[in-house]
């Protein structure tokens, strides 16, 4: 760690910095032009700049990449690069999918909408790449405040306003609990730097800390705070209402962005920061129990839903449960295999969820409806959207040989290897996967087997069709080249442990 700010450190920050600048550019462009297409094109094509900077960091284009910057607040490891690329994909998918919908249903200038998304993405990228509690909190708020605004973006819709107020009140409460956990951790360890916290916790002369209740409370409060962001039961109750009330592209953003960012920060704090091993290394029991309740409740209640967005909300709660199974496995022995499973699952989840929501956005755009029964006969009314969405839903359900199946297999295998402590959790996870197939296949059956009341062809906007095509290509590529993904993600997973 150097005690000076140099130009290389700004290179390390350049992806996030250029996303923020792009947000300001798009916001300013509103003053000059009224053409929606131009503003959208600038926002989407402008993502090439942060992508270039991330690639330059990944390939060490301008010399060796600094390992950390800004007094250890910013880390330049493979793990942060993985999340930079992941969130750039999220930004691209969300902005492309929302073009037609935003024009039709959100009566605001486009620059406002895209700049809010870009600011949030900058916060998400920072959540993966910071190594310090204060910065993690700032990044979390930079992510969350734009998300609250996005939930209430549809100003003519009362449900959207209701979703926004629920989200902002519960989100603020969860970050207050998170902050109390951070304050207690700071008090016990005397530092907010995660690397130093890990050193304090693991050093032998601080063995007295192993039973420290204040540190345990700090770790649990932090987990609760992030539990809200990843919608883990019992902190999930915001998710269905906000998913239903928010504009559909914003729902897509919540389901992929917020969840991945929450897991990025959890893994950073509990694995890199060593907080998983506080108090005799029994925190994994709590995570395992939460994982069991989360996936069971999410998958069972998803069966009962009639609104597709509520169904996807409970489905995403179930997916968070699978991810927590992987987290519990990691917390027992700090294995890189579990982190590998988690990162792979997140990458596949982002691509498939973008595809599934592209189908929902397409239907909502063309008909204004979003109930599961409105998908009747979509296979005839809009074959390509129905095919792509079906493929994504099958991957989410974990039907072999798709990428969704293989990434879930990796998580369960990592948990299975931890021995008898987690065997019950793996069995429960497999049972849940079987339940999940029912509600995913129900949508498929309606799309392809049920005769629709109306037989007219739907006019799906080109941007949604393009999003669907890209995510179908993405899923097929991930399925075929799953080994390539594993090699690249493997270095990211290992980098979380190398600094110790």
């Amino acid at each position, binding site marked *: 760690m150097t005690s000076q700010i140099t130009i290389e450190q700004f290179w390390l920050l350049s992806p996030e910095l250029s996303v923020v600048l792009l947000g300001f550019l798009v916001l300013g462009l509103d003053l000059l032009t009224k053409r929606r297409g131009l503003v959208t094109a600038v926002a989407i094509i402008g993502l090439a700049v942060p992508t270039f900077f991330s690639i330059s960091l990944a390939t060490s284009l301008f010399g060796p990449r600094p390992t950390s910057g800004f007094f250890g607040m910013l880390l330049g490891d493979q793990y942060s690069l993985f999340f930079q690329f992941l969130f750039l994909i999220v930004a691209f998918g969300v902005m492309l999918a929302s073009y037609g919908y935003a024009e039709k249903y959100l009566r605001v200038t486009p620059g406002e909408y895209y700049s809010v998304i870009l600011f949030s993405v900058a916060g998400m990228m920072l959540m993966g790449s910071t190594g310090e509690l204060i910065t993690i909190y700032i990044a979390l708020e930079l992510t969350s405040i734009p998300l609250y605004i996005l939930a209430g973006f549809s100003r003519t819709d*009362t449900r959207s*306003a*209701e979703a*926004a107020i629920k989200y902002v009140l519960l989100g*603020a*409460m969860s970050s*207050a609990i998170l902050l109390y956990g951070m*304050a207690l951790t700071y008090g016990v360890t005397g530092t*907010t730097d995660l690397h130093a916290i890990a050193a304090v916790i693991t050093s032998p002369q601080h063995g007295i800390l192993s039973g420290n209740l204040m540190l345990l409370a700090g770790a649990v409060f932090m987990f609760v705070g992030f539990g809200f962001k990843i919608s883990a039961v019992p902190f999930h109750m915001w998710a269905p209402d906000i998913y239903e009330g928010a504009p559909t592209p914003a729902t897509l953003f919540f389901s992929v962005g917020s969840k991945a960012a929450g897991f990025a920060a959890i893994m950073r704090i509990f694995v890199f920061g060593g907080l998983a091993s506080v108090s005799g290394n029994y925190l994994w029991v709590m995570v395992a129990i939460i994982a069991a309740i989360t996936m069971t409740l999410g998958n069972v209640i998803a069966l009962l839903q009639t609104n597709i967005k509520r169904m996807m909300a409970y489905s995403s709660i179930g997916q968070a449960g699978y991810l927590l199974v992987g987290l519990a496995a990691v917390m027992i022995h700090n294995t890189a295999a579990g982190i590998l499973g988690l990162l792979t699952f997140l990458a596949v989840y982002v691509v498939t969820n973008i595809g599934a929501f592209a189908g929902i956005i397409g239907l909502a755009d063309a008909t204004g409806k979003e109930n599961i029964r409105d998908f009747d006969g979509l296979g005839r009314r809009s074959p390509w959207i129905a095919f792509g969405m079906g493929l994504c839903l099958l991957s989410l359900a974990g039907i072999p040989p798709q990428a969704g199946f293989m990434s879930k297999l990796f998580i369960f295998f990592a948990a299975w290897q931890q021995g008898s402590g987690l065997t019950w959790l793996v069995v429960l996870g497999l049972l849940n996967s079987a339940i999940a197939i029912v509600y995913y296949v129900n949508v498929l059956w309606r799309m392809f087997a049920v005769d629709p009341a109306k037989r007219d062809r739907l006019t799906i906007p080109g941007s949604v069709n393009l999003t669907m095509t890209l995510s179908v290509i993405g899923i097929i590529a991930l399925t075929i080249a799953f080994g390539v993904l594993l090699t690249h993600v493997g270095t990211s997973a290992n980098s979380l442990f190398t600094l110790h």
Partner: protein
Amino acid sequence: MGVSLQAFLVLGAVVFCIGLFGALSKRNAVSILMGIEIMLNAVNITLVAFASSFLHQQPKNNPLTGQIFAVFIITVAAAEASVALAMIIAIYRRRNTIDVGEINLMRW
């Protein structure tokens, strides 16, 4: 010196619980927001108390960190409160109420 660290920590914990109770039990959206602000201020008390206890301890703990953390929390809480108040005004215009018990178009 006078007051010990424990006294401040207990104060912080009690204020945090008061805020949490207020945020969970009130039905008026503005009151909930006030409860959350009380929770954040309890965090600030805790942070500053820890920071001042590090002043006379081992030099490797930078006592400024906790104070800087508190300043950041105050700043970000202001931004969050402004967004929350804007949302409350938006819902009041549409529904003529800010009682969260009556804001129930969707199953809560």
